Each structure stands twice: as C-alpha cells, then as structure tokens.
C-alpha cells in the first residue's frame, strides 16, 4: 500500500494547519508543564537482594546495572537537593551490597564505593565506604583487589591512617592468588611499613620475598634489592 501516496500538495490546507497547530500546542504545553520540584531526600532503604532478583525476572545483571544508575542519580540530578556526599552512607553501603549480591562479578558497585563515595571529604563517611570495600574484597579477592588497593591508597594519603592502609595492603598480600595481580599491589604492605617506620618488619618481608624466588622480572628484583639495601642502611646500629 505504501508508495501509492498522493502528493503532499494534494492534502487540504486545514489538515496542514491542524497538524501544525496541535503540534505547537503540545510542545507549548510540555514547555509550560510544571517541573518536578527538587526536594531534600535521603536514600530509601534498599530492597533486599532477593526482592531485586524477583523484580529482575531473570535479568539480574541488567537489573544490577540499572539499580546502580538509580543510586548514582539519587541526588541533585534526580530531582533531589541532597548531594551524594550528604547521603546516609550506611544505607548507601546496603544498596551497594545488595546490588553486588545481584551480580557479584560486576565491578560497578566497588568502583563507585572506592572511587566516588569514599573520596568524600567527610572522614566518617569515607571510612564507612572503605570498610565496605574491605568486607567485599574477601568474597572474590582475585577480582576485587584493585578496589582494595585504591582503598589502601586513600587510607594512607587522604586519611593519613597508616595502620588502616596496612590492614588493607596485608589483605591483598595474603588473599590474592591470581597470577595477574601485579607485584606492586602485593608488595604494598612493605612500603606502608616503611612509612610507618617499621623498618625491621619491612626488611624481613622484603628479604623473604626476594629469597622466595617469586620475583621473575630482573628489573623488579633489582629495584626491590636496592630498597632492601636502603632499609639495611637505615637500620639503627646493633649495640
């Protein structure tokens, strides 16, 4: 039936005018429609992972990502005046936890926790997020170590809490087994110990690492050996 059309010029004028008028009225109406007023809202309690799973109708991975978008937009952009820095972080952690449960292989919740929510200037909130990353790390250390490594850096440089940074670094060193975990991440604890002035502990760890033969890269072995020498030099003289 298509292709057998009358030319546009054959259409009556009232139809052109009518269509243009209704289109103009619609666009005008949409432009004048009252916008949703932003309000100060905090996050609602998250639905349980089981409820999210039911609502996903078998599309858990897609639902997890849509839920992340919802969470991400739950501040000014979504008609809410509360910036994410002021949200209830315990509740935020619950949301992230349930989303992660829905799709444990997704890196999105941990990325958001470590790179967005933990980087707030509010120390209490940042610590809550870092602890969330730490807790979740143990579920799948070989996949989730980058976020804990970032958490260790935040603890060290932003919170100036070397003990906390060491705890995170220690977890990476002890629990990661995959061959693709870079050595800098596995050796992070040594450098934190150095910063803590725990020179003896750092020296023993570094010496043990070099003696174990796990370091195959000659440049890396040389670099670590130099660090060990520097540590030896900084040792207080034996009495």
């Amino acid at each position, binding site marked *: 039936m298509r292709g057998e059309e*009358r030319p546009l010029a054959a259409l*009556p004028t009232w139809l052109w005018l009518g269509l243009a008028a209704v289109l103009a*009225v*619609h666009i005008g*109406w*949409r432009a004048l429609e009252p916008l949703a007023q932003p309000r100060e809202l905090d996050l609602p309690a998250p639905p349980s992972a089981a409820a999210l799973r039911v609502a996903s109708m078998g599309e858990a991975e897609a639902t997890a990502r849509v839920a992340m978008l919802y969470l*991400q*937009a739950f501040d000014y*952009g979504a008609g809410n005046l509360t910036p*994410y820095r002021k949200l209830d972080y315990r509740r935020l952690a619950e949301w992230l936890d349930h989303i992660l449960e829905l799709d444990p292989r997704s890196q999105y919740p941990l990325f958001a926790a470590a790179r967005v929510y933990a980087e707030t200037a509010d120390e209490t909130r940042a610590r809550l997020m870092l602890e969330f990353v730490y807790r979740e790390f143990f579920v799948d250390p070989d996949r989730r170590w980058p976020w804990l490594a970032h958490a260790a850096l935040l603890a060290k440089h932003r919170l100036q809490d070397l003990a906390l940074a060491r705890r995170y670094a220690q977890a990476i060193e002890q629990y990661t087994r995959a061959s693709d975990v870079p050595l800098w991440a596995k050796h992070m604890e040594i450098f934190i110990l150095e910063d803590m002035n725990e020179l003896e502990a750092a020296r023993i760890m570094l010496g043990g690492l070099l003696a174990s033969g796990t370091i195959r890269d000659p440049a890396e072995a040389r670099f670590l050996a130099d660090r060990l020498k520097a540590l030896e030099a900084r040792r207080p003289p034996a009495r």
Partner: protein
Amino acid sequence: MQAAIFIRLALIEARRGGLAWLAPLCIALGVALGVFLAQLAITESRLLQVAVVAALLRLSAVLMLAAQVVSSVRREADERRLELLLALPLGRATQYLGRLAGFVALGVVLAACFALPLLLWSPPAAVLAWAASLALELALVAAAALFFAMSLTQLVPALAATAGLYVLARSISAVQAIASGPLAEHSLAHELGRGTVSALAFLLPTLDRATRTEWLLYGPPDSRTLSVALAGMLIYTALLAMAGLFDFQRRAL
C-alpha cells in the same frame, strides 16, 4: 450519527473478538492476586492489594487495547474492507476519526470496568480520578496504535512501535533525570546525548504523571495536578489523531 456507527462497530468487534471474556478474566486474576498477596503481607495489606491490582490492571488494559486496535486495522486491510469503506460516500476524516472514536469508546468502557474492583479498597473520589486518567491514557494508546497500524502496515512493527512509545512516555522523565546527574562526565557526547533526550521529551507525553497508583493509596490528586495530567494526554491524543489523519489522507486508493 456516522461516528456512532463506528463506535458501535468497534464495540461489537471487541465483544466478538474475545475482549468480553478477556477483560473480566483479567479483573478476576488481578483481584485473586491481590487477595493472595494480602495474605502474605504483615502490614499495609489493603495498600498492597490496591497497588498490585491497579498496576496490573493498568498494564493489562493498555496491552489489550493496543493489540485490539492493531489487529482490527490489520484485519480490515487484509480482508480488503478498508477499500470497501473508502469507496463509501464518507469523508476520510470522518472514517479515520470515527474509527478512532470507536476505539476511544472501547478504552472508556475498559477503564470503567477495570476501575470498579478498586472501589473495594479505595475511596470513590480516588478511583474516579484514576479511572478518568486511565480512560484518557487508553485514548492516547488507541490513537498511537491506530496511527502505527495504518502507517506501518505490518502487525509486529505496529505493536512494537506502540509499546515503544508507551514505555518511553512512561520513563522519559526518569531518563532525563539520570542524564542530568552530576556524576556524568561533561563531554561533547554527553551534552549531545542530554540534548537529544530533552528534545525527545518535548515530543512525548508524560505518562508517568498519569493514572498514578499513589492516588488510590494516599488520596486523590488536587484538581490542578489531575487537570495537568489529563490535558497533556488529551493534547497528545489530538496530535496523534492529526498525524494519523494526515497519513491517511495521503493514501491513493
């Protein structure tokens, strides 16, 4: 008079096509589901019932009406009844708008039937606002389905286009909110995307503000909110009707 004939034809076709038993079945299933869920709830059982039943009935009504309109138009085209009608001494505008009036009337009947069981749990004023909004929402869906069925000429694309428009109209506000979130990067691609979403929003109705379950749960909306929602749908229905009529007038039969 001619419009009354089209309305009668649409209602008879719907009754003979199975809508007469499908609609009561939907209502019965919805109510049964509501009663079942109320047994499970430990609080707010009435609210749970009305929320689930209303959402289910709203979606069922939309799907049923869209399928009815598209299949009816396709059947007319396949059986060459459309050519027969065009040969009658009736203006094309009368035919198109008469057919649309028939489907709108069917939508009003469906909205009234589907609102009735909600009176079990919600106050009449709230149910009335919900029913009026559903009737106009169904009128909009009927206009969209008729437009797509006439212009796309195939069943599946017409149904998909109607469903797509409906889903987009119900979610465009949320999409806009997400697009303007502060965490999104400020790149050219993002600005372009946001502009496209805003432009698209201007061409769509805001169905997320219509037929809201919260009216049934927490009381009817104020008259301004209701009239804004109803007027928006009315204008968009008129726009779809004009667009459909424009396309129909171009047909060389």
